[in-house]
């Protein structure tokens, strides 16, 4: 007999009223009709999934994507509104921390009670109890009542006892993030061991590294539907990219209000800067990292004076200024508009991200600088190759030589 979990077009729809009174009036109104409440939330939408022995499934998705609801249905805590779930094997789950633990009993007593619930005899629990206690690192606390435990200690106890009571299908919701770094490393190793013995593990986490380390399969849930299913590395990358692009889209909207040209004193103006890579004019404002990058700035002003400065800034989305220079307008521009300033970055070292380019025409004075005109635009740097390890601020070349001494 092999263990499996099979979900067939499973959906879960919650009806949501906003108050007790509304729920009540809804129930009164609709009790004789087949019609359901007007407000519904589809938490899980037509999910079909089959898990085989030895699979460790990671589930990722934004908050509210239906991850927890899906787990609850597999566990059997709630029933699906439609669809079928077949589970072969006993499901053990750590869904919400501390649920199922009895506050008045000591840690040790809790382990015995849980063992009994999971169909183990006292003798069987006796065999593993020392390991459980050692794993949970509770020391003297193991004989104290559970209500004296901190959240992290409860999490450790719950995790330890469940993984040692030899689960067939193990479901874990976000528990690994509660323990500290040392404990979560141990927990990861423990889960891998369970997977190796051919058991099924389902894990929900916001920690992408945990998913990549532990799981051999991963699904991405969005608005209750599975939108991606595959190797964890590929799925987590797609998820992170999407979260980032949504993030950036939101920031672009915020930046949108800054973007544009503005004349503050009549007669002064900065045209939208022209950006080029090498010799080609950029149509889209996307620049490949480590290429030649040119910015051409055209300004209009009524007469040439030493008092006028052109300030150019490149700003990262988190407002960090990466480039800032002031240029004497008379040196680079002519009031006829015939000449303009060209900035060349022989190799663009900025790491892939969205940046803002601000150009200002302003008075030279140090205090209370009067701004005559400004212009802001956005550009994006991308890279086809990503360096291993961290994401440095700059992709700056370092040459390394080795000599024998």
């Amino acid at each position: 007999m092999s263990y499996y979990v099979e979900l067939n077009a499973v959906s879960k729809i919650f009806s949501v009223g906003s108050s007790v009174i509304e729920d009540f009036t809804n129930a009164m109104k609709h009790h004789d009709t087949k019609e359901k409440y007007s407000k519904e939330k589809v938490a899980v939408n037509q999910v079909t999934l089959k898990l085989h022995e030895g699979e460790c499934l990671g589930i990722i998705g934004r908050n509210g994507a239906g991850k927890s609801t899906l787990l609850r249905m597999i566990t059997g805590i709630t029933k699906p509104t439609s669809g079928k779930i077949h589970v072969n094997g006993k499901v053990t789950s750590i869904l919400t921390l501390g649920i199922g633990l009895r506050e008045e009993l000591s840690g040790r007593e809790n382990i015995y009670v849980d063992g009994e619930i999971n169909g183990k005899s006292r003798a069987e629990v006796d065999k593993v109890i020392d390991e459980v206690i050692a794993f949970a690192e509770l020391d003297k606390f193991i004989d104290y009542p559970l209500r004296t435990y901190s959240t992290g200690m409860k999490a450790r106890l719950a995790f330890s006892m469940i993984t040692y009571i030899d689960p067939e299908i193990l479901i874990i919701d976000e528990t690994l993030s509660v323990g500290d770094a040392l404990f979560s490393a141990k927990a990861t190793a423990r889960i891998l061991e369970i997977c190796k013995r051919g058991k099924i593990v389902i894990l929900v986490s916001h920690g992408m590294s945990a998913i990549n380390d532990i799981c051999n399969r991963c699904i991405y849930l969005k608005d209750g539907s599975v939108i991606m299913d595959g190797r964890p590395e590929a799925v987590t990358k797609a998820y992170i990219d999407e979260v980032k692009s949504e993030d950036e889209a939101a920031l672009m909207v915020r930046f949108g209000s800054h973007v544009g040209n503005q004349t503050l004193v009549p007669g002064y103006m900065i045209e939208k800067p022209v950006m080029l890579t090498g010799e080609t004019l950029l149509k889209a404002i996307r620049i490949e990292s480590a290429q030649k990058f040119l910015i051409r700035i055209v300004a209009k002003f009524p007469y040439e004076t030493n008092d006028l400065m052109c300030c150019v800034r490149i700003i990262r989305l988190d407002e960090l200024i990466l480039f800032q220079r002031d240029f004497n307008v008379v040196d680079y521009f002519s009031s006829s508009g015939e000449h303009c300033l060209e900035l060349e970055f022989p190799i663009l070292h900025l790491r892939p991200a969205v940046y803002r380019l601000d150009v200002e025409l302003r008075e030279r004075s140090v205090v209370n600088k009067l701004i005559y005109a400004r212009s802001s635009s956005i550009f994006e740097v991308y890279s086809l190759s990503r360096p291993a390890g961290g994401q440095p601020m700059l992709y700056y070349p370092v040459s390394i030589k080795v000599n024998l001494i």
Partner: protein
Amino acid sequence: MHSNLALYCSGVSKTFYIQRKLNLWSILFSQEQKSSQLFQALHDISLEVPRGKIIGILGRNGAGKSTLLRLLGNIYTPTRGNVEAFGIIAGLFELGGTSNPNLTGREYAIRYLRYMGVLTKNLASVLDEIKDFSELAEAFDQRIRTYSSGMAARLYFAVATAYQHDIYLIDEILSVGDEHFQAKCWRRMRTRLLNGASGVLVTHDWVAILNLCETACVIEDGTFSYVGPSDKAVVSYLQLPKPIATAARFTTELQDEYRARSGETMHIKVPVEIVEPGSVFCFLSIEVLNIGIGWEIIILSDQKLVHDLPGHYEVTFEIANLPLIPGTYSLNLFLKHSTSDKGDTRSWTYGNGLRLIVDGEMSNSAVRIPFIARTVSREVK
């Protein structure tokens, strides 16, 4: 007298009675009461939180972090010592422990804000702001018990930080929610801090401590084992095993401090010894560590093969037109041995980091990017 302090505690201890059986009979008549065990969660803790600063507290599970935060927030009374706060405290204790799940998000927010003394005329705008920040949309008018844990976390954070309070007590909050929401929480905490708020952040996420706190404490078994600059606190908390460095190592001639000039070519010569045969790779990173503001890698080199055979080598890192502005940087060197984990590392996280001091002309940008400026005729295609 404490005009520059927002919150302080001195000589605070907290002892809990561990009662094995909690029933009326045993409380009234049992002999066990007298012999019931004591558990000292905190022992003689003194902490001062200056105005406008966030103090970080790092510690493993069960070290007493949450107990300390609750003492500071007046949820527990100390067994000994005293706690005093100068200002209104907004506590974000273990998320959501305090709310009635039958309230809707909006009702919860209204209750909280009224309790905090927000005037009715301001209420509507603050509520809109909370709804917007928490991204709950229509769920804002649904009951909290229908929320997922992440949605609830978003609500609690948005509500607790919607208003500028004097003191924030934060327990692990920044680790809740997805990356997108975390980034928003960061930005908000920073704004509150800039506007003069103070606080205590309890966490085991050391990057958060580096980014928000200048000073941090490490708590172990109810006492502070380290109090000081947050980078040193992180080193003390991480207690990373020292690199064994028997297979390949940086030799003792390695300098602790290197100097370079901004905009000029930088050479760093590193003596390396390979002891056991095997491919040894060397690389470096230059990081900026402004505690309380941020920690970021600026330059990360590729991994370069030093050699396969034992011997003494000199590795030279060369960076042309050094793009760093004047200041002190953390220089980290790594030696990886292909067949053994006994390589060597010099990094601030191990407490053996090197310093790179860059001199030169000051700049008002974060880095110095090489460029050429010229004037061109606008007709150029």
